């Protein structure tokens, strides 16, 4: 089951105003966390279209983190509420496709919460180690073979 050697790949969509700065803080403060996350800076968590998440999962990510400002703090006032409503809708849909809910995670991380960022990445990494590799595209390819 849990393969402790397995190092999951996480794609992190980080809002530039809060979470990306939070990630920066974790780095400049030399906090320790697993090197599993590739961060992509987006203007707002509300900018993260569900197709981005699916594309990441199809192209090799084992999990996707969407991180934005805390509710009430979004620089575009409501972007993070959009992210909040999309998240369970997407998780329900992905579950029907056989992708575990735990592979897509939504977190609110402010610019000053470097420590929280490190904790989230550590915890998410462990969670994905439990789930194992996704290999979504290989699974689709296997289904697409005809015989």
């Amino acid at each position, binding site marked *: 089951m849990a393969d402790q050697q397995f190092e999951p790949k996480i794609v992190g969509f980080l809002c530039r105003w809060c979470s990306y700065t939070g990630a920066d803080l974790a780095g400049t403060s030399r906090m320790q966390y697993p090197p599993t996350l590739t961060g992509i800076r987006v203007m707002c968590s*509300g900018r993260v*279209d*569900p*197709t981005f998440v*699916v*594309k990441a999962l*199809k192209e090799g990510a084992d999990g996707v983190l969407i991180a934005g400002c805390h*509710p009430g703090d979004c620089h575009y006032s409501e972007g993070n*509420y*959009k992210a*909040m*409503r*999309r*998240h*369970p*809708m*997407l*998780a*329900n*849909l*992905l579950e*029907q*496709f056989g992708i575990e809910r735990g592979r897509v995670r939504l977190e609110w991380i402010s610019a000053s919460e470097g420590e929280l960022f490190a904790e989230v990445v550590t915890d998410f990494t462990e969670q994905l180690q439990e789930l194992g590799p996704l290999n979504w*595209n290989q699974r*689709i*390819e296997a*289904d*697409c*073979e*005809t*015989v």
Partner: protein
Amino acid sequence: MAKPKVAFYWCASCGGCEETIVDLAEDILGVVEAVDIALWPVAIDMKRKDVEAWEPGDVAVAFINGAVRLSEQKEWVELLREKCSLVIAFGSCAHMGGIPGLANATNREEIFANKYHRSPTVANPDGIVPQEQTNVDGYDLELPTFWKDVKPLNEVIDVDYYLPGCPPPFDLVATAVGAILEGKLPPKGSVIAPEKALCDTCERNDTKPDEMTITEFKRTATSTPDPEKCFLADGFLCMGPATRSGCGERCINGNMPCRGCFGPTPDAIDPGLKLLAAIASRGEADSEEDAKALADSLVDPLGTYYRFGLPASMLKRSADTERAQT
């Protein structure tokens, strides 16, 4: 000048598309007088060897309906591709997989288990399952291979045009046939239907909310939609925002939300994900609990968003198809 020949063929389909062709034959005699029907299995008895005897280009256009699931369907559509100058994917199933494509939500083993063993109406004490090869009284019998997955036509052969809809409405078919006869064809690969979204032509658009106030989704099985209001305003999921127009709002006029049979508008990378994003942007839930409750009230999102296009969805199409389409 000899009349151009056309061929009609069917794969995994319900027969509804054939009805449109019958309507076509009845209503636009002009077109029917202008062409010869070279192949039409639902009405004319022909064997594969008859088609094999055609020269490539003998037949101007093949209208192929239905998704592809069997090896035999693949052989037929490849043969038609070779012999016909144009191939048109006719109807939702050939275009995107259609209703038969919903089978891709499960797998071949499960389908066989249900069909031949588990279903309550099945009595099969000897556990007999169809075999691709059997010997009966000294004769070797063969059945086609049932593929792992259902495929839209363009994953099996090169397709020139698509006529969307379940079934395609008569006027769009007539337009397409006219364009072919006059040689006024759109660029290869076009879907022969307007590019605008259904909402843009829908009479109920005036009542479509910018901000949705729904806190849960209703189902047409258990509540009746308001006959005037935009379905989204009334809490019913309508695929109108992500679906091409051109059907004549057939479902809306019958007080049913759009189920998306015309397929996505050209800008939608994936119709389900586009709709999901659109609804979520408009929902009213302001806490994680409310957001979860709103999401959970939509029973079967996969079947709702991809009723007609699961095999062509971003989550199910293969990387090869993805590359070809983008």
